[in-house]
């Protein structure tokens, strides 16, 4: 595999992992907070919510996925351009909409579908450019 194709492939894999980890992390946090219930805005209420989140395995799973997102993001920008990785990560919004339709059977407005189409075309355009226009200064051994 040529250097260019290898660079594109590993950046694509990292961006896809970023999208999966971010979406699963958000989903787990949402599920965990639903298990805990509405947080009362008072000192004892916030303290109770903090203790509940610490003891909730779903929240920890969410945090683990978000740490995975951070790791993938940091790894991707170690070789690829920030201006390449950042918009490509927005593909997650399109995936969220698809999941909302397929799994949750939500009704999506025409305006939102237009937004998804813009994101997909925008990400495809960015994806056609060279992933790295600056050379990394060192390589971690």
């Amino acid at each position, binding site marked *: 595999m040529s250097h260019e194709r290898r660079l594109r492939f590993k950046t694509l894999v990292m961006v896809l992992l970023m999208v999966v980890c971010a979406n699963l992390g958000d989903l787990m946090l949402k599920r965990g907070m639903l298990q805990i219930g509405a947080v009362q805005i008072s000192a004892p209420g916030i303290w109770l919510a903090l203790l509940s989140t610490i003891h909730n395995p779903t929240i920890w799973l969410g945090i683990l996925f978000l740490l995975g997102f951070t790791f993938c993001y*940091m790894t991707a*920008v*170690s070789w690829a*351009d*920030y*201006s390449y990785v950042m918009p490509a990560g927005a593909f997650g919004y399109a995936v969220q909409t698809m999941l909302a339709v397929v799994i949750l059977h939500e009704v999506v*407005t025409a305006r939102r579908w237009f937004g998804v189409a813009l994101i997909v075309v925008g990400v495809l*355009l960015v994806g056609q450019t060279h992933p790295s*226009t600056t050379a990394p200064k060192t390589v*971690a051994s």
Partner: protein
Amino acid sequence: MLVFFICCSTGGEIAMTYGMKEVGEPSSFRPGALLRFITRAIGNGWVLFAVPLLAASFYSLLVLLSWAPLSVVIPASAFNYVVGTFGAKYLLREQISPKRWVGVVMVCTGVTLVLIT
């Protein structure tokens, strides 16, 4: 607050990228190499500088959401894609082709439309 949010968010991500470029990519995806990569990243000054900036951007977004309507906050936060691209061009010296610019603007507009509905 909006300017503060955009500065912290973009500044944090630019600093993180600059730091990770100094760290360099992992030599392989074996556990040992990944551990050395993570250790070097955690010890990099720019990465450490980025963490409080990103935390400040997260909390300022929460404050903004409590102050201003969603129809104002979301386009402003999506505008980060454009500001970030300018930062990448002038601070990280990345070459932004016209095709990439068009893509970024489309993503920015698309994210606004998706989040606002």
